[in-house]
């Protein structure tokens, strides 16, 4: 009966800490996508707005997935505080570039969680994170595809309208 912590929690404390940081990050990503949706709505890029609304919900679902996982493993999931959301963008392209940069940061953080899990022999967490690794590949790719449209079609008023029309909303 020595190790009470191990008896009550199936993940390591350090995994729990980095997963709680990830909850924070997913939640911030969700809020940040909402700000992007708002900008697109206000600038009459309807499809882009729908794209970001959907992304915002997806990020929230990622957050919830991790939140539940921590609690189901006997840990203590911490409800995140989100501040400093940027609402200012100078162009539609900048919105998508920011989105891609944000996804890349998330990918790095997820890789960090896996690296930490490997280091501490926390196979449950390593296994749980596999889904996120694939999800990140998918998300980075979908935004890169949109950025390619700017190279292809240009950046003037009509081109932007056409790009917006080509953005898949589901």
């Amino acid at each position: 009966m020595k190790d009470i912590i191990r008896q009550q929690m199936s993940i390591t404390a350090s995994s729990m800490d980095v997963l709680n940081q990830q909850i924070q990050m997913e939640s911030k990503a969700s809020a940040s996508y909402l700000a992007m949706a708002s900008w697109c709505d206000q600038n009459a890029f309807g499809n882009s707005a729908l794209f970001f609304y959907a992304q915002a919900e997806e990020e929230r679902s990622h957050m919830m997935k991790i939140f539940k996982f921590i609690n189901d493993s006997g840990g203590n999931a911490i409800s995140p505080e989100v501040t400093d959301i940027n609402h200012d963008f100078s162009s539609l392209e900048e919105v998508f570039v920011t989105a891609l940069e944000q996804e890349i940061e998330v990918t790095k953080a997820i890789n960090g969680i896996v690296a930490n899990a490997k280091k501490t022999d926390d196979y449950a967490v390593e296994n749980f994170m596999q889904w996120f690794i694939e999800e990140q590949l998918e998300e980075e790719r979908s935004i890169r595809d949109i950025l390619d449209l700017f190279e292809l079609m240009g950046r003037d008023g009509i081109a932007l309208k056409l790009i917006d029309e080509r953005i898949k909303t589901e």
Partner: protein
Amino acid sequence: MEVLYTSKFYTLYQAGHERCFYLDLGQKTIRLSFCQFLALRHKVMSISIESHFDSDLNEHGFEMLILCNKEHFFILNTLEVLDLKCLIDHSFSLIEMDAENVFTQ
């Protein structure tokens, strides 16, 4: 009940049969379920010690600690906060090292 770690001011005990912890904070000893222990860890780890050295952020260098769903209330000074951080840190690494040793023994 066995001692897990003794820091300068505090002692943490583990009560195997009760599956809980006891923390002797000097003024009193409190009982912590595992979840309460995790919550304590989170609260103590989130205290920004830097703010204790900035009179705009923390004028008097005190920290209020409310534990176990508001059952206990403590006021700690800078040295006590540092000591408590140290105790939490050490106990967790001790316990996790113990868990790893199971495989190497």
